[in-house]
């Protein structure tokens, strides 16, 4: 296949809007090729989108669906010759997730949080999501074995457990959510700061975070630790954010990437002492990112309208339910985590919501290096991912931001710096924030760019970058980005003129990390005791079996530098 005449953006390879042809052979970008010719003359062409933080599969998704039949009724689309039926807006069914990503031009999406013991369910849902490549990050932040290793300062054993946990969950990376808080929530409390000891375990969140970051690098995992801060969602929490990032400054990355990826930064960039004097501290956070190089972030931009909040930060969900007078689901997970789900609505005239909306945009606009920023809504916490084109339009047009601000509560002008920000993001920066940066941050070498040998995941939009001024034509930008003219996944056309034309099964990425056998044996003997005494299932029934990954893609890692094993 040859894509002819497109205006190509491939910033990872130094291509910023050049007219060129792209050749595809055997599902990869090639020097030359024959076969089908796609006429992309003058159209915007870029690598397929990569979502590095989204909640798309697992028990909390189904909890959201089951408690929200009202949401499932939104977005209903009947089956077609190609597609199974779609339902839902904030909590779409599995098929809708795949189709809607593909229509946006996205070809990869990673589930951001799954407990090991419930990973089988996550993979059951991932298997049902069509088209996109996917993976799931694994939760370690309130895990008994992790906390005991940290307390004993036994990094070899912790590395063995993390490697085993990733294998058991068929997980891709280390996710840490409100570390220690998930355990404290087991008796209804929480940790208040990164130095507040976890009840019964005699370790602090700071120690857990640092140890997991060290072990992450010891294991040379493709992705860094992926961190949801303590105190997330609370006024004044920007100090916790900076204090936590400072903890990790001296850790050396084992690969060419960050040491920590901060999940949904927007929810941790809050000033004020309470909701009354709530204000944006995005500029302080952005300054920190501008001055350091060990951290990256995704935005967690909010979108006005309905959302469904779902997180392993169970105390936060309890607070959400109380503040919003909403129905509340909670799910504690033995020895590993806790979690919650609460429906939500972000309102334009609600002062806090207006400031939250500004914070996400400020973070993207004030952080100078786009490689440190991934555009997300923390789907469906800030709003559903189908709204990404809205955010793109906002980032590219100050005029649109001004128009929007007129519809919001007036505090957006006094409690954020957004009105004074002139920067308008260009196409290259958009491609970095939605493709190149998330792929690099996740350690997906064959994604997010169009170099020879890369996965032939490509999106082509009905937008003519040479003719359009995104600053003024933001409505056209939004419309064009909402329905890809073509989405090509692994060399196959899956979307044509905004419609799904094929729905192949994507791959599931997981990381197999090697550790010395003696460490693994030592770890397993203490883990066996946990199964005998505390888990409610047997160890032999715990690991996710091969049957749940019909199309796996294994990334090798380990304590020793390893050559890629095929």
């Amino acid at each position, binding site marked *: 296949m040859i894509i002819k005449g497109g205006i190509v953006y491939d910033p990872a390879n130094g291509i910023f809007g050049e007219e060129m042809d792209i050749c595809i052979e055997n599902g990869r970008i090639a020097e030359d090729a024959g076969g089908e010719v796609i006429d992309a003359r003058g159209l915007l062409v870029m690598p397929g989108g990569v979502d590095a933080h989204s909640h798309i599969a697992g028990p909390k998704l189904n909890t959201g669906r*089951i408690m*929200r039949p009202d949401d499932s009724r939104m977005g209903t689309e009947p089956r077609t010759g190609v597609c199974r039926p779609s339902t839902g807006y904030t909590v779409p069914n599995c098929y809708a997730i795949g189709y809607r990503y593909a229509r946006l031009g996205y070809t990869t999406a990673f589930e951001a949080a799954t407990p090991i013991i419930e990973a089988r369910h996550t993979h059951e849902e991932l298997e049902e999501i069509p088209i996109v490549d996917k993976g799931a990050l694994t939760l370690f932040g309130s895990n008994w074995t992790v906390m005991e290793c940290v307390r004993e300062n036994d990094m070899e054993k912790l590395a063995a457990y993390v490697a085993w946990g990733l294998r058991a969950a068929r997980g891709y990376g280390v996710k840490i959510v409100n570390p220690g808080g998930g355990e404290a929530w087991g008796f209804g409390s929480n940790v208040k700061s990164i130095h507040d000891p976890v009840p019964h375990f005699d370790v602090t969140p700071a120690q857990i975070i640092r140890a997991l970051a060290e072990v992450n690098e010891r294991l040379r995992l493709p992705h860094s630790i992926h961190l949801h801060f303590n105190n997330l969602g609370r006024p004044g929490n920007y100090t916790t954010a900076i204090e936590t990032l400072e903890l990790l400054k001296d850790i050396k990355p084992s690969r060419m990437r960050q040491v920590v990826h901060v999940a949904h930064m927007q929810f941790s960039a809050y000033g004020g002492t309470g909701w009354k004097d709530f204000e944006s501290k995005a500029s302080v956070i952005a300054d920190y990112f501008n001055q350091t190089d060990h951290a990256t972030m995704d935005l967690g931009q909010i979108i006005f309208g309905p959302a469904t909040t779902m997180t392993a930060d169970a105390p936060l969900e309890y607070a959400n*339910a109380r503040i919003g007078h909403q129905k509340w689901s909670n799910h504690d997970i033995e020895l590993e985590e806790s979690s919650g789900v609460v429906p939500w609505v972000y309102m334009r005239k609600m002062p806090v919501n207006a400031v939250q909306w500004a914070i996400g945009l400020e973070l993207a606009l004030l952080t100078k290096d786009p490689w440190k920023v991934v555009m997300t809504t923390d789907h469906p916490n800030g709003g559903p991912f189908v709204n990404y084109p809205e955010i793109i339009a906002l980032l590219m047009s100050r005029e649109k931001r001004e128009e929007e601000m007129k519809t919001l509560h007036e505090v957006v002008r006094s409690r954020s710096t957004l009105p004074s920000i002139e920067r308008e993001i260009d196409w290259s920066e958009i491609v970095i924030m939605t493709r190149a940066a998330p792929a690099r941050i996740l350690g997906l070498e064959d994604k997010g760019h169009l170099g020879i040998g890369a996965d032939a995941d490509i999106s082509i939009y009905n937008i003519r970058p040479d003719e359009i001024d995104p600053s003024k034509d933001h409505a056209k930008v939004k419309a064009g980005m909402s329905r890809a003219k073509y989405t090509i996944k692994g060399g196959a056309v899956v979307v044509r003129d905004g419609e799904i034309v094929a729905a192949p099964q994507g791959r599931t990425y997981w990381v197999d990390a090697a550790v010395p056998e003696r460490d693994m044996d030592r770890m397993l003997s203490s883990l066996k005791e946990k199964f005998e005494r505390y888990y409610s299932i047997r160890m032999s029934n715990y690991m996710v079996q091969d049957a749940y990954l019909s199309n796996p893609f294994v990334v090798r890692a380990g304590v020793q530098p390893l050559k890629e094993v095929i």
Partner: protein
Amino acid sequence: MRLQIEDVLCTFCGCLCDDIRVEVDGGRIEKVRGACRLGSSKIMGHSRIKSPMIRVNGELREASYEEAYRKAAEILVSAKHPLLYGWASTTCEALKKGILLAEEIGGVVDTTATVCHGPSIIGIEEKGLVGSTLGQIKNRADLIVFWGCNPSEAHPRHTLRYSSNASGRFIPEGRKDRKVLVIDVRETRTARNADRFLRIQPGTDYEMISALRMIIGGKAESLPEDVAGVSRKELVEIAEMMRSAKFGAIFFGLGLTHSRGRYKNVDNALSLVSELNSHTKFVIMAMRGHYNVTGAGQVLAWSSGYPMAVDYARGAPYYNPGETSCCDLLSRRDVDAAMIIASDPASNLPRGCVEALAEMPVIQIDPFENPTTFFADVVIPSAIAGIEAEGTAYRMDGLSLRLRKLVDTEYPSDVEILQAILDNVRRLRDDN
């Protein structure tokens, strides 16, 4: 050769015990260790349907699988609005095929939850579910409440593995470290193991829960001296028992869902637990019956957005319990054919619904004969999931586990049967 298989999952009730030991000799199950009496008899097995059967002139006659698949497909294709019912005692993989089939023929998928914990699901839609895995309760709960359920007889190993008599990290002494409260309309075997038994009048669950909510909310003085036959003093003591627990867990059964108030009882109980969390830690869980009724709800939810009673007649999932649920469809004669898989509606649905079923073409897929067989028009015997076929099931707390295959069989699995019917449906469609 005698083979001992460890850590087998028991496919009887929602406890989904995964520590059973099974001895197999010459392809037969010889011995089951560690299971309860109910599970043991399920795993040991009993007489099977020997061959596929098709009803001809009122009599079931043996047929080949191919003939049975074709006949089943003919029934489904010629029906205007077929019902695909059951699913609680088979694998998630079978239901996935069933949903695809329903999409293609415009049918309704409903599970046995509809006549069981369906009201609980509607309660959850109203209020959300504050829950946990069973292991969390095993390790932490110092108060266990059984409300309208009787695990001693219905979930025999529940108390030992997960709840009142289990030991865990913060409950090292097991039963001694916990208080057990039973609330029921009669003194069950479970009640005999309780520290406190509150006997209530039938149909007064809602009043009791409301009274407890008032006390927990600090409005005890507004209560009358006597609430439906229970003294205020006793209710205050019970509320205090709940509030003073470090970690409380309520397990509820059909006593809540099938007495006056139905989903409103569950809604109220969920609210009580939600409010208790302002004072201490509390969770609540439905005592699900069939081993994979939870999984059936999960598969339907991720496929359609809804956990039961999903109608595909419009090409997109439509859900309206009371309209699209099995009993309502049957009593209104709103379906004209039925495929019954891994369940026995003849014994469990209201009489009017069974009569409606008996009048329409019925396909039955099941390893065992049951009263539904008496009016089935096509009977397709299947392998027993979890014994003769692998697959996934979800425990009552939502934990997903993989069922093992213990012995070989000549019978096709539910997945294979459904695929064959789907293939025949597609072929018939192409021919027309």
